[in-house]
């Protein structure tokens, strides 16, 4: 803008600024309204969609997981409350609470086998076995959602990633970096030896023994002195025990 001299010039400039501001506000308001409208439409569409595909959401775990993802993107949490539209429509809240209770059950029953650390995949298999009678299939995604709801109870349920696997922790044991690395190493064969840990992670021998002793104490590892080579193996039920062994634990 070309600057003109005098009071008159300053006043014109101020008036022009006001005009611009007003116009800007209008444009912004129109945009927000439009956005709001779009979101409202989207939301009602989502509700329509949920109503229409109610059965799919209930029965098909893959569909359910995609639905959750979609909801999360527009800030709708079907699990947030057990009351209201979503719960009434889908009964999803109850579904996950039920899963949560069953997950706690399984974790407790298998604790003496695995020290309170269970492979998510195995947990899911056990959950399905347990719910044989229920019609809906359960996916790992469902397990994760149910576990995230358990966190509210402050009971120390947590999902940790070790290597490629996800493990569900139901005891307050703190696993440090060393422990995690050993668990990751153990995924290859289900066990590790002190030598192997030293070699693969380039640790001093004392460090490996320390970490393995802790894991043993916590009930997460079991020793095996029976191999021909006479080297002690440390097995980790949470990464190597098959689901079928876990189901034996459930029976007793």
């Amino acid at each position, binding site marked *: 803008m070309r600057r003109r001299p005098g009071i008159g010039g300053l006043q014109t400039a101020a008036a022009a600024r006001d005009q611009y501001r007003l116009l800007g506000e209008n444009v912004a308001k129109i945009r927000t309204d439009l956005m709001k409208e779009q979101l409202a439409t989207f939301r009602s569409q989502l509700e329509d969609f949920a109503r229409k595909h109610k059965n799919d959401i209930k029965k098909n775990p893959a569909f359910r997981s995609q639905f959750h993802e979609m909801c999360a993107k527009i800030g709708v949490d079907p699990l947030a409350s057990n009351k209201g539209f979503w719960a009434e429509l889908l009964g999803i809240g109850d579904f996950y609470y039920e899963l949560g209770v069953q997950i706690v059950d399984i974790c407790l029953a298998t604790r*003496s*086998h695995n*020290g309170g650390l269970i492979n998510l995949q195995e947990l899911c298999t056990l959950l399905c076995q347990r719910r044989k009678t229920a019609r809906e299939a359960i996916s790992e995604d469902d397990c994760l959602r149910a576990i995230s709801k358990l966190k509210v109870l402050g009971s120390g349920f947590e999902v940790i990633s070790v290597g490629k696997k996800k493990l569900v922790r139901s005891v307050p044991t703190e696993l440090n970096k060393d422990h995690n690395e050993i668990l990751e190493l153990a995924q290859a064969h289900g*066990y590790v030896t002190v030598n192997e840990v030293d070699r693969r992670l380039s640790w001093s021998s004392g460090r490996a023994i320390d970490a393995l002793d802790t894991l*043993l*104490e916590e*009930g997460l590892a*079991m*020793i*095996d*002195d*029976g*191999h*021909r080579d006479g080297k002690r*193996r440390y*097995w980790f*039920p949470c990464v*190597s*025990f*098959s689901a*079928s*062994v876990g189901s*034996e634990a459930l029976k*007793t």
Partner: protein
Amino acid sequence: MQKLGDFKLPHFFNYPPYFTLQPVRDTREKQLQLWKELILDFCRTQKIFIIGLEEEFSLFTNPVIERSLSHEAKETFLSALVSEGRAEWIDKGHKKCLILWLRIQDWADCILRFVKDNGLEDSVMTIEEIRSGIESRGTELHGMDRTVLIRALKLLEHKGKAAIFKGTSADDEGVKFSV
């Protein structure tokens, strides 16, 4: 699933660390529990009464994973059964162990049931007949250990429900039921 004859082995039998005594208390308790159940189950279905610790015993070795129980482990598991009254050491050196998958009392009840089912009240049978006769075929009594049988019968005698009498030789001891 792995089998031993017609016996279905549990999954833990294929997990190597279960063949090594576990040093941590909680883990060992679980290990003991599983082995105790397995031993009783196996002996019951295979009608095994005596386990010799120094002899080959198929349940204590798993060739598939190349693991066997150590002498110490065998003795620990069997001692746990002994302390629960489900087994007895036959000798002081703990080399042979009598497995009571049924307690003597349960065996006595079993005999009474057998007597009633077959209308043998007030009749006489020899010990051998009970162990291997036609009547007992298909019941738990068939093929049972002689000493266990005699102990169960003595318990019944003590309760006044049977009377044992000696024949001319050791193998024709008889028993008269008076249920």
